[in-house]
């Protein structure tokens, strides 16, 4: 790698630099790609990387083996993981102690270590390469796949795989209007939640009066369980920067900001390093690539609230004010940051821009459905076998994601519902899983694509309890400025809590519906406008669960504490006494080898006996 960074002053310089970088890589015999993303980092991938470096040094193999730490590969649950070239061998669940064996066996002898291969949970067979793993097989990884080829702290890696060529193409071949036209043909819609057509936003911002304009990248990602934006910014920051530069060129901005959630230190670090490197190469600053375009950017750390991801709150926070939404009767494309025209896009939206320019709008528009193009990254979580980041073409049925990629529910249970779109998305029942992931189709079904969270729920999930959980989250996160959201969510939560605790009255269900409509229609910002979705969708698809709670004071899934009783089935109980010893409240009595009984007045419904009993004798009614 070059020690002194030459400034890249023209497109020709960039092409030559890329050629040089590519040829220098060819000298390595083997390449180790180890995931250093936040997920794998938590399972000590840094120790694994250090162990490899140490071991290679000891064996004097540093010259022939290239160790690269990359961003997230999406399958964090199996981490730390690595890919070994040649052979594309995929090892997972690594420990620092495995380094020696891998070097001795696989790198030197070419033998595969069975123990470290991934086991397909369906067939129980060992799988050698990433491509054969069912989790990856059904995906279409346009953005995420790049992560494995770049060290996030190395601009050289990014340039070597063709990075900044889209920018070069833009500056030399495209007028700003042509860029917007290209994005328009591609059909790209915002990945941050609303699905707003990106080209329309850019065009409005471009035509808004004013000299000074800004582009902002929204990396506030506050949805619980979501981490696609983090994985991109952390794993491939230059992709986002390049996308923002192309956008800035299109709308006429000279300054950009990346607004990163405070809890993402690694993303901040990598983005900061990336910007520094780009500046050293002259890819940020004045007269970029000799095209007369000047642009620079800054990083700003988030205000630490979910609502700070909302566009006007984010801009207020960037200005140093309290991160609270304001009415958007004049759009931010005309009156945004410091009252200047501003384009705000999500991390994933920006990341999609360079490939659209490089591969052409038609390539992007070739994937997806009529109204939703390209690929989208989802964070698959919940009661599903394989969890992780999943990138699929728009239009892929939810069923494919949950069953083919996710492997279905854990513990052999049945999938009952899938919640999409984050905390203000909706719950869809099993018979709706043939719905494609598509902005409009999911919206019509009462849910949304949102930022891309998918939570799988099994038969042991109570849908009223789910609604309560999301309401409580949103109540906590509401900024409290406007009445419908602050008081409306609070009252909805009050009613749903009544229902789960056995105080529900039939007329409250109608009140809940009316209230949901009021909050959705009259709230100031998107948080309030979408907050009723969890309630509305569960009321729509699972009315019988609400009715059971209200009319029969019964929780069909056996979740709501106030409505359930623990009992011991005398037929099945053989008097082993495990439950008696396990119960922390001393609620179980019984003689050895005789059926035990639970004293209901003492039972605190902790559920410990249920998980302890080996004979399935504890029943929840």
């Amino acid at each position, binding site marked *: 790698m070059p020690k002194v960074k030459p400034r890249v002053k023209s497109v020709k310089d960039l092409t030559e630099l890329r050629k040089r970088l590519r040829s220098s890589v060819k000298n390595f015999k083997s390449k180790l790609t180890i995931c250093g993303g936040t997920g794998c980092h938590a399972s000590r991938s840094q120790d694994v990387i250090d162990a490899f470096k140490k071991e290679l040094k000891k064996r004097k193999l540093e010259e022939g083996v290239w160790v690269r730490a990359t961003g997230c590969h999406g399958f964090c649950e199996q981490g730390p993981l690595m890919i070994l070239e040649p052979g594309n061998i995929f090892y997972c669940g690594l420990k620092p102690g495995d380094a020696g064996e891998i070097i001795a066996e696989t790198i030197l002898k070419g033998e595969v270590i069975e123990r470290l291969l991934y086991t397909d949970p369906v067939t129980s067979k060992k799988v050698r390469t990433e491509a054969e793993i069912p989790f990856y097989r059904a995906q279409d990884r346009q953005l995420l796949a790049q992560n494995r080829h770049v060290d996030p702290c190395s601009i050289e890696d990014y340039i070597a795989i063709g990075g900044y060529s889209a920018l070069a193409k833009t500056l030399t071949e495209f007028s700003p209007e042509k860029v917007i036209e290209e994005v328009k043909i591609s059909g790209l819609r915002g990945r941050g939640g609303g699905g707003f057509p990106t080209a329309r936003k850019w065009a409005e911002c471009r035509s808004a009066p004013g000299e000074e304009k800004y582009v902002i990248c929204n990396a506030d990602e506050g949805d619980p369980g979501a981490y696609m934006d983090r994985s991109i910014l952390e794993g491939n920051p230059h992709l986002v920067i390049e996308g923002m530069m192309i956008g800035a060129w299109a709308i006429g901005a000279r300054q950009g900001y990346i607004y990163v959630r405070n809890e993402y230190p690694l993303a901040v670090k990598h983005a900061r390093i990336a910007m520094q490197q780009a500046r050293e190469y002259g890819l940020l600053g004045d007269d970029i690539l000799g095209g007369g375009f000047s642009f620079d950017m800054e990083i700003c750390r988030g205000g630490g*609230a979910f*609502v700070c991801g909302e566009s006007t709150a984010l801009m207020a926070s960037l200005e140093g004010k*309290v991160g609270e939404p*304001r*009415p958007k*009767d*004049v759009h931010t494309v005309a009156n945004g940051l410091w009252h200047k025209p501003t384009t705000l896009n999500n991390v994933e939206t920006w990341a999609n821009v360079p490939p659209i320019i490089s591969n052409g709008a038609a390539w992007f528009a070739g994937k997806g459905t009529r109204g939703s193009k390209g690929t989208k990254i989802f964070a698959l979580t919940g009661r599903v076998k394989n969890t992780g980041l999943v990138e699929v073409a728009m239009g892929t049925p939810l069923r494919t994601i949950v069953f083919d990629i996710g492997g279905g529910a854990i513990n052999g249970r049945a999938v009952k519902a899938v919640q999409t779109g984050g905390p203000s998305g909706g719950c869809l029942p099993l018979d709706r899983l043939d719905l494609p992931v598509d902005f409009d189709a999911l919206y019509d079904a009462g849910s949304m694509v949102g930022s891309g969270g998918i939570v799988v729920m099994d038969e042991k999930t109570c849908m009223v309890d789910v609604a309560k959980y999301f309401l409580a989250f949103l*109540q*906590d*996160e*509401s*900024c*409290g*400025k*406007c*009445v*419908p959201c*602050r*008081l*409306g969510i*609070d*009252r909805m939560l*009050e009613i749903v809590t009544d229902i789960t605790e056995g105080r529900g009255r039939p007329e409250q269900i109608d*009140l809940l519906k*009316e*209230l949901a*409509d*009021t909050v959705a*229609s*009259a*709230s*100031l910002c998107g948080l309030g406008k979408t907050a009723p979705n969890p309630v509305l969708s569960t009321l729509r698809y699972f009315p019988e669960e609400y009715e059971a709670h209200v009319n029969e004071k019964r929780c069909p899934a056996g979740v709501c504490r106030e409505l359930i009783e623990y009992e011991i089935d005398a037929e099945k109980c053989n008097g082993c006494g495990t439950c008696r010893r396990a119960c922390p409240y001393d609620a179980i009595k019984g003689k050895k080898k005789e059926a035990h009984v639970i004293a209901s007045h003492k039972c605190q419904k902790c559920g410990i006996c249920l998980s302890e009993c080996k004979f399935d004798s504890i029943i929840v009614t």
Partner: protein
Amino acid sequence: MRKYVTLKIDGAGIRAPKGSSVLDVAIEYGICIPHLCHVPNLSDIGACRLCIVENIVNGRSKITTSCTLGVEEGMVILSNTERIKKLRRNIAELLVAQAPNSRAIQDVAVRCGVKEVRYPFRNNDCVLCGRCVRVCEEMWQARAIGFVGRGKDRRVDFPFGVRPDFCKKCGSCIYLCPMTITPCDGPMKPGKEYLCGKCESQLSMASGAMEDTCVWCELGKGFSVHDMVINERLLLFMMISMPISPSSTLPKHFFPLTAYPVSYSGSAAHDQGENCFLRPIVPVF
């Protein structure tokens, strides 16, 4: 030169200066859109959402608050459709359940057609309308009070909870606060929280003869003007606020709509909250 636009509010053709809000213009023309957080000459934050209207754009109706909506040429605004009335009623119901002990809030609720309250009452001292915060910041440049906390914990307070030296003790905050209006002597006592409807300003009214009249104005004649503490402070406030009115003439209801009649002794918020931030402020005029 002032630029004018023409728009339609509830079918009436209206000529209005560019830069004014739909709410200001509507009030000026005698179309009373209920509102709470709006105060003429202070900035609008769209917090109470009572002033919602339907803005018809390309045949599609968009619901938005009229206080934050600037007038535009050819606009079509509907302020009193069934949908709006229903939403407004629900919002007012949420408010009155939160602060049943304020006559101002009761009156707003009446005006919006609330007849029953379907939620358990809470006795809050503040509805977070932000009138006090904005008058302090914008009229007096004092910023002695502000919002703290988020969501459920949001409240108005002094910086670090202590009244700062730069509080001008002007009393404007109390003046504009809807919670400081003496409620009727009737049943609004902690523990016995129900709206009895006996008092003229209370909920029964909406079903009676006064339906669809603006309670604020009508009642302004009926009960409040007498109680109004007209003093130099109020006059000063009016003098300061008048010349910078965004609209050409001030609404004729200017007074009852901006300042509630206030009597300091026996005001609800003062008597109840031990920690009411308004307590330590002694008007100095």
